[in-house]
């Protein structure tokens, strides 16, 4: 007899971990299927190894197991991620799919836990108000979100307190607070923890931006600055972004929601279990379960009233498409990703860039979102400028090196000897407008070892992307000059990568099924009992890291699911 559960969750990463906790705590019988390992803390006790995690990508799937292909336009043949699949050993394993196993992308994440701003939810309207319709790039499919910042605020708050975020509030209920970000949208209360110890390189950035009349603030981070809910404070090891945490100070659902779900007694987790397909009723109008293979490639079927796809935006799309769920041809459309615009400097004083986490540092929001300064480059939407001070080990520093320096010989040896401990980085994630030219579909030629077609990305950086990098490069150059930088350089405005682990938009939320894939709660149009979670639901994409919004949306979906089913915990308590 086929097994039956109330709900099955595909992927126990950021969104799936939270959904598992919410549903099982409300009394539903939940099965979690995760293609990676159910990691234990012993796996990560000694992870201070740049080759293992960063260069060799120990806990990313890798394109040999999970092939993804890319082409710049429909006229070209897609190839397995050329920037990540280096057959030459010169590959970048972290510019592919995120880390896998319980925790998913939050094992590796840099923990930048930004909220989006009010205007980010109505980007189209805000651009039309300021610049007019003709300013929008041709081919754009930009829309406003079917929900507002105000709708999501309580859920942002919940994500910050449940998952553990440190930071300094800048605007509590409309009241500005010193030391916080004066440009943030109003929040209902402060962060549960103050910021973590700053990296040594943050001082020059803060001083320089203040002198320039800007407003530096400490970044919100999903990292404990003090003991929080039984997890210890960060020890500043500097193996964080791209690494798992050895002391459980980094917020990942592997140490937050997944253990909480297990503790309810209602949750069963099967790891090394890869979902291949969503099953539906004969008329296709209702999800009935999933098909998956276990570690021994044995095929299983499970039935459930509720199927939740939380397998990352790209994999959610692949599962929808291979299952034939694409009624209005919208699945995979509107692919958006971040262009980081990396800018590096050599500073006069030591920055010891290997100390502390990547983002133990400040940022400025003076040029962000709808308040982007008037400019000659036609840039319509701004971004924060983020200072990065930690997590830079020597091999990564070699990759980051000033391209004007020859990368071998005495010149190279001396450059790294003299400059490594003085490096400082800045980045901005520029807005990537959704466009009819940017989409995912199934690759007609490349399959994985289970016979499933690879997902194929069609994407090229547009003029607006490149212009935003150029414009923000000017602002960064000004800050670097003010910091007294001895040397500066930056990434090309059209970088080689087209995946950033910040890949979103591909199962868009909306009211109209002919231009979106799910409703505003993640419920897939035309297929009852099927939800898709994660950044795939985003409608537009400004300059902020996606994960806190993914988590807030997950809490929001969970409340909706439980309200609809009449099993929300507070209802139970009232009985």
């Amino acid at each position, binding site marked *: 007899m086929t097994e039956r559960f109330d709900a099955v969750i595909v992927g126990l990463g950021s969104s799936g971990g939270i959904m598992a906790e919410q549903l099982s705590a409300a009394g539903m019988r939940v099965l979690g299927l995760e293609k990676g390992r159910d990691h234990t803390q012993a796996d990560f006790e000694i992870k201070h190894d740049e080759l293992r995690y960063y260069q060799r990508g120990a806990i990313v799937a890798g394109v040999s197991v999970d092939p993804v292909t890319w082409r710049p336009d429909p006229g070209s043949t897609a190839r397995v991620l050329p920037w990540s699949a280096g057959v*030459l050993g010169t590959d970048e394993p972290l510019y592919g799919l995120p880390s896998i196993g319980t925790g998913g992308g939050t094992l590796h994440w840099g923990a930048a836990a930004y909220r989006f701003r009010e205007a980010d939810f109505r980007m189209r309207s805000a651009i039309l108000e300021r610049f007019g319709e003709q300013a929008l790039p041709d081919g754009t499919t930009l829309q406003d979100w079917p929900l507002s910042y105000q709708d999501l605020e309580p859920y942002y708050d919940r994500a910050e307190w449940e998952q553990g975020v440190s930071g300094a509030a800048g605007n509590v209920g409309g009241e500005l607070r010193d030391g916080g970000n004066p440009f943030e949208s109003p929040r209902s209360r402060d962060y549960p923890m103050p910021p973590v110890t700053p990296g040594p390189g943050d001082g020059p950035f803060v001083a320089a931006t203040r002198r320039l009349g800007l407003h530096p603030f400490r970044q919100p981070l999903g990292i404990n600055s003090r003991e929080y809910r039984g997890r210890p404070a960060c020890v500043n090891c500097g193996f964080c972004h791209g690494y798992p945490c050895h002391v459980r100070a980094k917020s990942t659902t592997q140490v937050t929601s997944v253990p909480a779900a297990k503790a309810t007694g209602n949750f069963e987790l099967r790891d090394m279990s890869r979902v291949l397909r969503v099953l539906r009723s004969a008329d296709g109008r209702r999800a009935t379960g999933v098909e998956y293979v276990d570690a021994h490639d044995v095929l299983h079927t499970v039935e459930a009233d509720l199927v939740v796809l939380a397998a990352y935006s790209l994999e959610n799309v692949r599962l929808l498409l291979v299952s034939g769920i694409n009624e209005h041809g919208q699945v995979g459309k509107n692919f958006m990703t971040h262009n980081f615009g990396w800018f590096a400097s050599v500073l006069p004083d030591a920055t010891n860039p290997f100390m502390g986490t990547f983002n133990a540092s400040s940022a400025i929001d003076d040029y962000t979102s709808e308040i982007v300064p008037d400019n000659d480059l036609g840039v319509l939407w701004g971004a924060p400028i983020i200072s990065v001070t930690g997590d830079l080990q020597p091999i990564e520093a070699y990759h980051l090196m000033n391209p004007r320096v020859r990368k071998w010989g005495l010149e190279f040896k001396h450059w790294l000897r003299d400059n490594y401990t003085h490096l400082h980085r800045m980045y901005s994630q520029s807005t990537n407008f959704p466009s009819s030219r940017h989409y995912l579909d199934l690759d007609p030629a490349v399959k994985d070892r289970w016979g499933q077609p690879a997902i194929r990305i069609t994407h090229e950086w547009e003029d607006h992307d490149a212009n935003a990098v150029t414009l923000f490069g000017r602002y960064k150059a000004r800050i670097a000059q003010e910091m007294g930088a001895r040397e500066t350089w930056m990434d090309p405005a059209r970088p080689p990568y087209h995946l950033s682990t910040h890949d979103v938009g591909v199962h868009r939320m909306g009211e109209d099924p002919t231009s979106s894939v799910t409703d505003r709660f993640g419920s897939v149009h035309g297929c009852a009992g099927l939800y898709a979670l994660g950044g795939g639901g985003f409608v537009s994409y400004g300059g902020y890291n996606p994960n806190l919004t993914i988590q807030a949306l997950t809490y929001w979906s969970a409340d909706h699911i439980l309200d609809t089913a009449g099993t929300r915990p507070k209802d139970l308590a009232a009985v």
Partner: protein
Amino acid sequence: MRPLFFLNPDEARIIDAIASHVIPSEPGSPGAREAGVVHYIDDTLAGFGRDLQGAYRSGLEALQAAVAPYGARTFADLDEERQRGILEAAEASPDVPDAFLGQFFAIVCEHVVQGFFGDPAYGGNVDEIGWRLVGYPGAQWGFSADQMRPGVDARSIPILTVADLYARVGTSA
């Protein structure tokens, strides 16, 4: 000589010669050769990077072809100036399809850097030569708020390796 797992002794001498051009040795400042980078590469090719065995073998052939006009037995037997000339020519043409030598040199450069700066447990970075060169204190369990203050000379922090961490937590096999 340390045992080899993939390269033969001649090939190892050639890779070692290339490595010492990528990160040269100087009086008082050891380079890739002293760091044992060739053993990192050999070990990688026998294990994690075995997919690259073919690339190394064809790269070494391409290199041999570039050496032939000089009448030397192998690249390692050429004088340093000739060696450098061959590598500079290779670097200049990395994308020419039949000039595989350029691609091969790019791969070796990457691996030399990995062997020089990776944890010594991987066979290179002997005596933490790479880390000492750039002032990196290695596999630290964490840094204190004091150490995180601006202007701290990180060279004063004793270097630790992954093996040291295993010894500390007492889980070493």
